[in-house]
Each structure stands twice: as C-alpha cells, then as structure tokens.
C-alpha cells in the first residue's frame, strides 16, 4: 500500500471504532472493548508496516541541497538532523473563507514516525490493560469509545501537516481528556477535575491560537513544510521581536497541554480519571504532545523563546520532584513525577536539544506507562484504595506487578543501563555543557535538573518501599492478589521496554539493517546521532566520566536516604508529616498555586463577573430586551386599533394604500 493510504487508514481506524461504539455498542461493554482494542493493535501493526515498508536508507541523512541555503542556522541544522528528510507531504483543500484556505494533510518525517510508533504502541497495550481494569465498570462502552476518540485525535496531532489542523486535533485531544477524566461522573471530584483540566487547557490554547493566527499573518502560511522553507531561506526572520512573540505564544499551547508552569495545576487533579487513562493520556502520550509540538516547530523558536522554555522547564523539574514527596496518593505521586519529567523534556528543548527531548519522551512513555499501569494493578487489587500508607508488602502478593514496577522505578530514577538513564543523563549533561560553554549562570539549570534527579530517586524509592516492601498496612492490602493476564501482559511488555528501550544508543542493527534496538532505524535516527554527538563532545572536553559519576552518586544518595527515612519508618503515616508537619504541608499544597488561583477566581475574577453581569442586566435586559419588546408592543397596540371589523373600512385602507403607492410611483 502507498504511504498516504496507510496513514489515512491509521488515522481513520480509531475514528471508525469510536463511531461504531458510540452508535451501537454503548450498552455492550465487552464488544466495545474488543472493537477498540482491535483497532488499537491494527493501528500499531499498520504504523510498524508504514515505517518499515516505506523505509529508505536515504532518509537517514537530510539532503544537502534542500532547502537551498548555503549555511543553515545551527537551530535549523539541529532540526534537520532530528526530523530527517520529509517522507511524505501532502494536503487536501478543506474549506475556504475569502482568501484563507484551510487544508488537511499529512507531514511525515522521522520525527512523526517516532511519535506515531510511541503513541500507537503504548496506547494499544494500555487498551489491553483497560480490558482487565475496567472489567466490572458500568460505563465500559463509553470508556472504550473515549479511548478510541482519543487515539484518533492524538494521531491527528502526530500527522498534521499544518498548524490549523494540528490545533483542531489539539482541541479534540482536550475534549477526549475531559471526557475520560469525568468517567466517574457520579463523583463531584471527577466532574470538577475534568472541568479544571479543560478550562486550564483553554487558557493555554488561547495563546496558542493567537500564535497560530499571528504566524499565518507574519509568515503567510501555517504549513510546516512551507514554514521550514521560509525559515531555511531567511534565517534572519527569527531575529525580530515579532518572531519571539510568536514563539512564546506557540509555547503557550505546550504549557497548557504539557502542564508546565504556571498551568501545571490541572494535571494532578486529572488523576480522578480511571488509571489507564492517567497512564495513556496524562503520562505517556497526550501531555507529551506538547513536547512533540515544540520539536515539530523547533525551527520557528528563536533563542529568546528557548531561553524561557529552558528556565521554566528546569524549575518545574525540581519543584515537581519536591512536591511529589508530599503526596500520599499513589497516582498523585506519579503525576508529579510526570510533571518533573516533562520539565526535563522542556529543558532539553530549551537547551537546543529537541532530539534528546524526543528521546526522553519515548523512554518516559515506556516507564511511566508501566508505573501507572502498575499502580492501576495495585489499586485494582486493593479495592480502589489509593493511599500508599494503606498498602505495603505487596511485592510478595503481586510479584509480576511488583517486579515490573521495580524495573520502571529504576528507569524513572535513571539507574544506569535502564532506559531512563540514557535520555535523562544526556539532558543533565547537556545542561552542564551549557554552563561550561556559555556562562556560569547556566549552571543554575544544571543545579535544578540535578535537584530533580535527586528528588526522583527520593520519591521513587519512597513509593516503592512503602507500597511494595514492609508489612501490609490495611486489610485490603493484606488480601490483595495478582491481577489477571490482560493486565499483567501489558505490564511485562512495557516493563521490559523500561529496561531495554534505551539500549538503542549502542546502535545494534538487526533485521537486515531495518531495526536499531527496539526502534526502526528511521525512528531511532531522531535521537541516536544527537546522543552520540553529545557524548563525543563531552568526551573531548573530558567531562563524560565525572558527570556520569555525579549522576550515579546523586541517585544512590537519593535511594539510600529515602530507604532509610521512609522504608524503615515505623510510623503509620508519612514520616515527614510526623517530623515536620509544616514542611510536609508545603509540599502537599504544591506551592499554594491552587490557593492563589482560587483566591484570584473568587476575589478578582468574580468581581469582574459581577460588573459584567450588572452591565448585562442594564444594557441587554433593560435597554435591549425590555426596550425592543416595549417598542414592538406599542406599535402592535396602535395597529390593533385599525382592526375595526368592517370590510368597507378595509377597502378604504386599501384605496389609501394604492393611492400612496401611486403617489410614490408617479413622483
């Protein structure tokens, strides 16, 4: 099959599945699950087919002559190295307003191939897991329909060839996230969390939309390939203040979707949704879409914009890591971990290494999906208990979950040879390199990401030792037993990937040179050469080993401290809460962002609403509503007087009317 056909099929299969479920299978949960899971695995198969079948070794290197600039800027070179040459770029006319033509189409390169693979792979296994996790749920049909529509929207973002189409699917993703967070719609908390997620995302998307419109106005196009050519031919365009503003506005979309400062508040509440949803949408794929978007338009981001992204990302890495220590809910701990890792990816983009951000995105998708699915398995076994201090000793009762969770936890901490280590360490090294090369102030970024790494080791070890080691802390945990096969198989698959996915950097080719580690060569190309380049630079400057040793020491210190402090604690609750309630409370309230926003909404926004409401009553209700109604009523009353009930009178009226017309016609 031709590539465009395969890609259309990949995009439309989940939509078809969602439509079939919405129309016919809402009451038949098992059938809906079957349809959705089958669509998921078919998409996965087709993605692998599309990537391997249409692979061409020439696609590994960006053609030297396109776009025809003598000397592409360093950012453009980075982008070209990451995205590789375009495999496919086509668009279809969608609709037209005046001179503005909206189109839909696919822009496919190594970068989108990698994202397509990650999304379809992780989503399929999580859907299989959901079949077990949601087995007894009443709204199973609705749930799987939601997963399918999410798949459709996410694949649309991955494949979109222009920013408008990307925005359409961006909003669809927001909608499906909203729908799935509110799955347990009978609880107030889920309803409020879904609204919060949607509204906070809208705030980010508002800036995003402005950015897209301004981009259209400034560069004259929103097609990615055309934008790339424009920036390629005229690198000077990025030096203007407008370009910086457009870059910052586009970044707003990333900030909303990837829950970065200051819009991070929605992600942890989004954990009110079912755990597979948290795994798929709020850890592995959707929140990573923001990072993917930044990588996709990397050539549009001027250095000033990258600067902001870097500092905000690094700050989020450290803060979210600390906040994770203040959570007693297993899913919330993982949610803050996700925030912290998204911070790493943002830092990487900001440092000028979008390749490493994509590398970390892929690795993070594997191990964070495992962590969330593992927590789902635990929650399922403990009868929907989410408080880690009511679990304990689960490793013996749930060995498969416990061991896969261990693999993913080690990857999360970036212990050497686990997948997370390769990507995370390279980001930390890149931050150090920035400080080394460009000024002492950038060591601040290095310090922040290093604090993030320390916190990661702390909260991961805390989580693991409290949940899986020690003794049972409640009856539910005491009676827990291993989950069914449909839940353990995805855990094993993703758990093994958390261990081995990072070995791709050793460039081990197989299947006739088509595969590199677990990735097809094209996908691996996105980050492998950048990783090698960075390692070589570090080697030349004699920094490689010292950075590696620092990382390992930091991780070991974190693991050891957490094990001593949390693992051996005899208190019923959190030992930090017992020793220093104030410090724990600070972490638990995650920097009082929610409280500040609450105060703002209640005291500032509400006042503005009151004034607007009063104006509404005054102008629209009194003047507009009552005014027009009164005037029409008066006119009607006058007309009523003319209805005298005598035909002869009407004839005179008629005559008068004819004379009037005649008079005007003769004039």
């Amino acid at each position, binding site marked *: 099959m031709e590539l465009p056909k395969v890609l259309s099929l990949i995009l439309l299969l989940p939509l078809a599945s969602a439509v079939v479920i919405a129309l016919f299978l809402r009451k038949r949960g098992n059938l809906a699950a079957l349809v959705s899971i089958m669509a998921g695995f078919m998409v996965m198969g087709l993605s692998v087919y599309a990537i391997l079948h249409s692979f061409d070794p020439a696609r590994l290197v960006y053609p030297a002559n396109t776009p025809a600039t003598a000397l592409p800027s360093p950012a453009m070179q980075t982008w070209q190295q990451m995205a590789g040459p375009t495999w496919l770029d086509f668009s279809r006319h969608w609709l037209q307003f005046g001179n503005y033509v909206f189109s839909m189409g696919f822009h496919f390169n190594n970068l989108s191939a990698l994202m397509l693979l990650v999304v379809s792979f992780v989503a399929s296994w999580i859907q299989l897991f959901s079949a077990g996790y949601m087995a007894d749920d009443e709204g199973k049909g609705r749930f799987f329909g939601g997963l399918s529509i999410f798949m459709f929207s996410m694949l649309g973002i991955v494949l979109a060839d222009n920013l408008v189409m990307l925005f359409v699917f961006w909003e669809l993703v927001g909608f499906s996230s909203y729908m799935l967070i509110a799955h347990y719609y009978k609880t107030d908390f889920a309803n409020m969390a879904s609204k919060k997620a949607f509204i906070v995302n809208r705030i980010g998307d508002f800036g995003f939309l402005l950015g897209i419109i301004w981009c259209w106005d400034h560069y004259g196009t929103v097609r990615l390939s055309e934008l790339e050519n424009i920036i390629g031919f005229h690198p000077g365009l990025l030096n203007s203040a407008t370009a910086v503003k457009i870059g910052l506005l586009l970044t707003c979309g990333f900030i909303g979707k990837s829950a970065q400062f200051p819009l991070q508040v929605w992600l942890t509440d989004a954990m009110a949704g079912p755990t597979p949803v948290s795994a798929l949408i709020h850890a592995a794929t959707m929140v990573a879409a923001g990072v993917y978007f930044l990588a996709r338009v990397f050539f549009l981001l001027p250095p000033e914009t990258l600067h902001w992204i870097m500092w905000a990302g690094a700050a989020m890495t450290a803060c979210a890591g600390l906040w994770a220590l203040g959570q007693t809910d297993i899913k919330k701990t993982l949610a803050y971990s996700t925030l912290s890792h998204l911070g790493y990816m943002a830092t990487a983009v900001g440092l000028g290494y979008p390749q490493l951000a994509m590398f970390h995105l892929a690795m993070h998708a594997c191990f964070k999906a495992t962590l969330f699915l593992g927590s789902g398995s635990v929650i399922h076994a403990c009868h929907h208990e989410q408080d880690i201090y009511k679990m304990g000793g689960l490793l013996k009762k749930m060995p498969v979950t416990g061991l896969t969770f261990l693999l993913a936890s080690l990857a999360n901490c970036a212990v050497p040879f686990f997948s997370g280590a390769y990507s995370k360490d390279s980001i930390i090294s890149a931050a150090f390199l920035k400080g080394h090369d460009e000024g002492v102030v950038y060591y601040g970024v290095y310090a922040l990401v290093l604090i993030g790494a320390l916190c990661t080791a702390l909260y991961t070890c805390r989580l693991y030792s409290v949940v899986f080691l020690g003794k049972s802390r409640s009856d539910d945990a005491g009676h827990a037993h291993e989950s069914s096969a449909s839940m353990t198989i995805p855990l094993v698959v993703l758990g093994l990937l958390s261990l081995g996915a990072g070995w791709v950097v050793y460039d081990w080719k197989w299947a006739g040179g088509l595969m590199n580690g677990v990735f097809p060569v094209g996908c691996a190309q996105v980050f492998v050469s950048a990783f090698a380049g960075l390692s070589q630079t570090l080697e030349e400057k004699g920094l490689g080993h010292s950075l590696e040793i620092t990382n390992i020491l930091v991780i070991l210190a974190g693991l050891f401290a957490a094990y001593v402090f949390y693992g051996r604690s005899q208190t019923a609750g959190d030992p930090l809460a017992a020793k220093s309630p104030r410090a724990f409370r600070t972490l638990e309230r995650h920097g009082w962002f929610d409280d500040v926003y609450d105060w703002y909404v209640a005291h500032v926004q509400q006042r503005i609403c009151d004034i607007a409401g009063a104006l509404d009553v005054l102008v629209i209700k009194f003047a507009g509503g009552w005014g027009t109604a009164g005037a029409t009523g008066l006119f009607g009353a006058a007309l009523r007087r003319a*209805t*005298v*009930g*005598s035909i002869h009178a009407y*004839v005179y009226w008629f005559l008068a009317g004819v004379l009037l017309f005649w008079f005007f016609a003769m004039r």
Partner: protein
Amino acid sequence: MQPGLQAYLAVAGIIFAIGFAGVLLHKNTLVIYMCLELMLTASTLALVAFSRFYGAMDGALFVFFIITVAAAEVAVGLAIIVALYRRRRTVQVDELNYLKH
C-alpha cells in the same frame, strides 16, 4: 360614425366606478362579490378596446385567460359564501366582524 377608443375607455371607467361604488356601499356579501366581478369585467373591456385599436392580439388573448380564471374564482368564491352562510346564517358584512379587536 365609429365610436373612438376614448368612448370604450369611458364606458369601462364608468362600469369600474359603478362596481367600486357597489363594493363600498352594499352590505350583502353576494352583491359585493357581483360588484367585484363588474370591476373585473370593466378591466377586460379596456383590454379588448386597446387590442382592437392598436391592432395587437395580446389584450384579446389575455381576456380569454381572465374569463377562464374568473370562472374558477367565482366557483370558489361562491362556495366560500355558501359555506359562510351555512355556518353563520347571514351574509351581511356588518355581522361578519369576528376579527374585530
């Protein structure tokens, strides 16, 4: 002496005026209706006269259509008046004032 176009138009105008006066003055729906027909006839007479004096057949042709349509219209109109009478037991317009405010 042949009568001229003005004579025909004068007759048509007089018939039209008689019909219009009848519509205005009579109280019986049936008579009002007949007066309306009189006005229609006056206009057809004017058409025929124009047709005759300008040598074009358009006006005369129109008259055939008008007569045909008028026949159908009279049938409907009379049926309405009969139905009205059955329901209200009167055809005097003074008493047909249900729509008065």
